[in-house]
Structures are given as structure tokens and as C-alpha cells.
């Protein structure tokens, strides 16, 4: 099936991440090879087995008015900030319908979160135990529901074509982008605001991820702990934030003369059916997702020059991903500059696919692949060209890039983008 006769393009980007409060400062940090990982100074962190994380660079309380912020889970605050940036970047203002550029019933929102309003849930449970049921906030349910970031973005922009929240752990953000592409291709919407958000830096998720041996317990300096593809990697670093883009049918974008970053070719999906959390070691599922992508789009592997790897810095996952790419792409993998931006942002879980889509779109737009931090000694099982040290130029002409995201539960999502 070739679905590219209805091309979908990216017209706006937004982010709030450990590297910056918007997409420009985030990109600047990525290209400079700056780490957003820091020691956790909060009192509650003292007793934890892991005391580092990549918290957002700009607190949402500095941006959102307090009466609004107090009714939003932190994940929805991030989503709103990133969505508003993307919306304005795409040349829209106000709500859909107000400026005549897009009808509300042709605008959708697909914003994912891996674990939803977990800090709201836990904080309100503390209120229940310490102050009693009467003091539990009446906003608790709309704050903790996993669709809260999507719903609030949809409300803010006036999206009436549909508001959705795919949930697939750390693949959620990428699944949201893929879902948005489908909404436009199937004619349900002309414009969709899509991406992912996560806010889970709290002692309970940290203890839980640490106890399942997913987080690094390294005693290195915080900025050196996230080290995808390095021989000594031993787990991920928890990050937080959101990345959101505006997707639009090429026809709609052209009609209003919008700036176009790149084309979104589509998504390849699969599931491992192997283990609830362990990656399938040969990369079979990831390979299937990539194969599905190649079969459903007109992507020519010869055009691929860049990939934003899922690469979380875990021993098994990073290797399986590269094995899968090699299996499907063969010698074409040799002309793909691979960046593992989690080395700088940490792992944003359901926000990762959104932020890394922003990074991939900007990599194509600026024709530059960000470096992978802390890659001192490449794992000998990693047979691929990982960008290390400094950012690398990506060359001229029509170029394409992949963005991989995989999640607990065995979810595999591969997205493809191409310059126009």
C-alpha cells in the first residue's frame, strides 16, 4: 500500500525539556551536547537508590498562571506549553475557527502520556491520609486521567475532530504522532496537534523503576550516567517534559502558505509478544515495525541519513535496536548517522517520542545530527555509525530520517520523516 498520495507535513514544533523551555533552546542544547541530568536536591530523594534525574529546565509555574496551573497535572502543564509553542510556530493563533485558518471540526489533538497524572494521584493520596477525604481535590480525576494532557490541549486550541491518547509506555509519544498521521490520511482532520508528555519524577516511580533494575544506579557524575551504546551503560535516567508538533495535510498547509519543516511519511508498528518489560534480544519486533514502515510508504532506504534511536542506555535494548536496523537495512545502515538524544535529555517515557520527533524534525530541517553524549567506548555489538563527540552535518538534497520508540509491553513504533 502506498499512502503518500495524501502527504502529511510538519508545520509547527514545540517542546519543554530538561535542556530548555522551548524547542529552540532544546535544539541548541542537543547540538551543543549539553546534559540535562542533575542531582535531585529534594528532601525525598535522600533515601532513594537513585538520586539523579533530568528535570525540565524551565518550571511550568514560571509560564502558566497559577489558577490554571493548579488544576493541571504537571504532565498536562508541559503538554499545554509545548502545544502552544507548536501552534504559534505553525502560524495559528487563538482557538481553531477564530482566525479562519482551520475549522474546529477539522482540528484534532493526539497527545500521549505513558503513565498519566501519577504525581497528582500520589500527592492526593497523601492528602487523603494526612488530612482526610474532604480535603482531596475535586480536580483529582481530571488531573490524573492519562488523557488529561490531550484533553487540555484540545480544549485550549478548540480541537473538535477528535482528541486521543494512545498509551504504550515509552512508545506512547511516537504512537500519538502515528495516530495523527492516520487521522489526516483517512480524512478525519486537516490539522492535528500531536506528541507526548510525561511528569513522573516522584519517589514512587523512581523507586519502582530502580527496583526493576531499569534505572542506572551509577555513582558517576549525573551528566555522565546516561550513556547509550557505551560499553559501561547500565540503565536509563528518568527525564520529564513534552514535545509536540503540528501535523497538517500538505494541501491544507500549501493553501494557507505555511512554513513546512518536513514531510511525515508514516509509521511502522509491531509488538514483540516476548516479555512484559524485557526487549526481545534479536530485535525481531523492531525489525518487523521497520519492515512495515518500508512497505507502507515510499521511503527509499538510500535517502536515509539519520536516525534518532530509542537507545535508553540499557544493556539489552540498545543492542537489539541496532541489530534490528542492520537486519532490515543491511548496508544502507552505513549511511545513517545515529543519535541517541536520551544521553542528554534522559528518558522522558511517554514524552520521549514527542521530544525525539521534535529533535528528528529539526535534525532534517537544520541538516544536522546531534551528538551522543558519554559514548567513550562503543559496545562492540553495536555495528552502526553513532554520532559521537560533536554534531554532524547531514548533507544536501532530499534526505530522510527515522525516529524509533519502544515501550514496556513490547510496543514498537518507527516513524519516518523526509525533507520536502
Amino acid at each position, binding site marked *: 500500500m502506498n499512502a503518500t498520495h495524501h502527504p502529511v507535513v510538519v508545520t509547527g514544533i514545540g517542546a519543554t525539556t530538561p535542556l530548555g523551555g522551548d524547542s529552540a533552546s532544546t535544539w541548541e542544547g542537543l547540538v551543543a551536547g549539553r546534559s540535562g541530568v542533575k542531582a535531585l536536591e529534594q528532601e525525598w530523594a535522600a533515601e532513594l537508590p537513585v538520586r539523579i534525574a533530568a528535570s525540565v529546565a524551565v518550571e511550568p509555574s514560571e509560564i502558566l498562571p*497559577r*489558577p490554571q496551573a493548579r*488544576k493541571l497535572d504537571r504532565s498536562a502543564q508541559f503538554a499545554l506549553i509545548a502545544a502552544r509553542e507548536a501552534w504559534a510556530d505553525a502560524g495559528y493563533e487563538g482557538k481553531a475557527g477564530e482566525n479562519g485558518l482551520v475549522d474546529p471540526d477539522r482540528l484534532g489533538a493526539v497527545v500521549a502520556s505513558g503513565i498519566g497524572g501519577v504525581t497528582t494521584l500520589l500527592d492526593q493520596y497523601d492528602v487523603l491520609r494526612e488530612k482526610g477525604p*474532604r*480535603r482531596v481535590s*475535586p*480536580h483529582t480525576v*481530571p488531573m490524573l486521567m492519562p488523557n488529561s494532557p490531550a484533553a487540555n490541549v484540545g480544549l485550549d486550541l478548540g480541537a473538535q475532530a477528535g482528541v486521543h491518547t494512545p498509551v504504550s509506555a515509552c512508545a506512547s509519544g511516537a504512537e500519538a504522532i502515528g495516530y495523527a498521521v492516520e487521522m489526516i490520511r483517512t480524512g478525519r482532520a486537516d490539522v492535528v496537534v500531536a506528541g507526548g508528555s510525561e511528569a513522573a519524577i516522584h519517589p514512587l516511580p523512581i523507586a519502582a523503576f530502580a527496583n526493576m533494575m531499569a534505572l542506572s544506579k551509577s555513582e558517576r557524575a549525573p551528566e555522565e550516567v546516561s550513556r547509550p551504546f557505551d560499553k559501561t551503560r547500565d540503565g536509563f535516567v528518568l527525564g520529564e517534559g513534552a514535545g509536540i508538533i503540528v501535523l497538517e495535510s500538505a494541501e491544507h498547509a500549501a493553501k494557507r502558505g505555511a512554513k513546512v519543516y518536513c514531510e511525515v511519511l508514516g509509521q511502522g508498528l509491531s509488538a514483540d509478544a516476548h516479555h512484559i518489560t524485557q526487549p526481545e534480544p534479536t530485535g525481531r519486533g523492531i525489525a518487523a515495525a521497520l519492515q512495515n514502515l518500508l512497505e507502507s510508504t515510499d521511503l527509499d532506504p538510500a535517502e536515509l541519513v539519520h536516525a534518532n534511536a530509542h537507545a535508553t542506555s540499557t544493556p539489552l535494548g540498545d543492542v537489539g535496536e541496532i541489530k534490528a536496523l542492520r537486519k532490515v537495512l543491511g548496508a544502507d545502515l552505513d549511511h545513517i548517522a545515529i543519535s541517541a538524544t536520551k544521553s542528554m535529555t534522559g528518558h522522558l517515557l511517554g514524552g520521549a517520542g514527542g521530544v525525539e520527533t521534535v529533535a528528528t524534525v529539526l535534525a532534517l530541517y537544520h541538516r544536522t545530527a546531534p551528538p551522543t553524549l558519554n559514548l567513550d567506548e562503543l559496545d562492540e555489538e553495536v555495528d552502526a555509525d553513532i554520532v559521537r563527540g560533536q554534531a554532524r552535518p547531514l548533507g544536501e538534497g532530499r534526505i530522510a530520517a527515522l525516529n524509533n520508540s519502544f515501550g514496556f509491553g513490547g510496543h514498537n513504533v518507527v516513524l519516518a520523516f523526509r525533507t520536502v
Partner: protein
Amino acid sequence: MAATKEEIVAGLAEIVNEIAGIPVEDVQPEKSFTDDLDVDSLSMVEVVVAAEERFGVKIPDDDVKGLKTVGDAVDYIINHQD
């Protein structure tokens, strides 16, 4: 000691300011919580719980529906406080 009408208006103004961000001077007895002060039904529950605590009254859910304006709440508190 029971709070005076002025003290209750001032207290509610602080609560509404905290919850909805409305300037305290705008919170006057004739103002409607939903129409004038940007207090939706969920935020109204917060206003009620904060008022209960501050003025030592109990405001059952069934009575909350009757509190349309700041003045309604002031009268309710005056009539129900110890």
C-alpha cells in the same frame, strides 16, 4: 468568636483569589461565583472546603447549589457558624 460580615467577605475574597486568581477587590457580595469570578463547579467545591475550614462551618453538598453569589455564601456562613 463569630466572624463579621466584612471579615467573611474578606476571607472569601482571599479564598477566591487563591483558587481562581480573581483580584480580592473584585470579590463583592453581589458577584456570582460562576458568571463573574471564574469559579466552575469543581473549583466551587474547593472554595466551600476552604470556607468550612476558615469559618468553622459545615456546608453539605446539597446546600452548595444554593450558593450562587458571594453574598449567598456570606449569609450561609453567618447563619451556620458557632
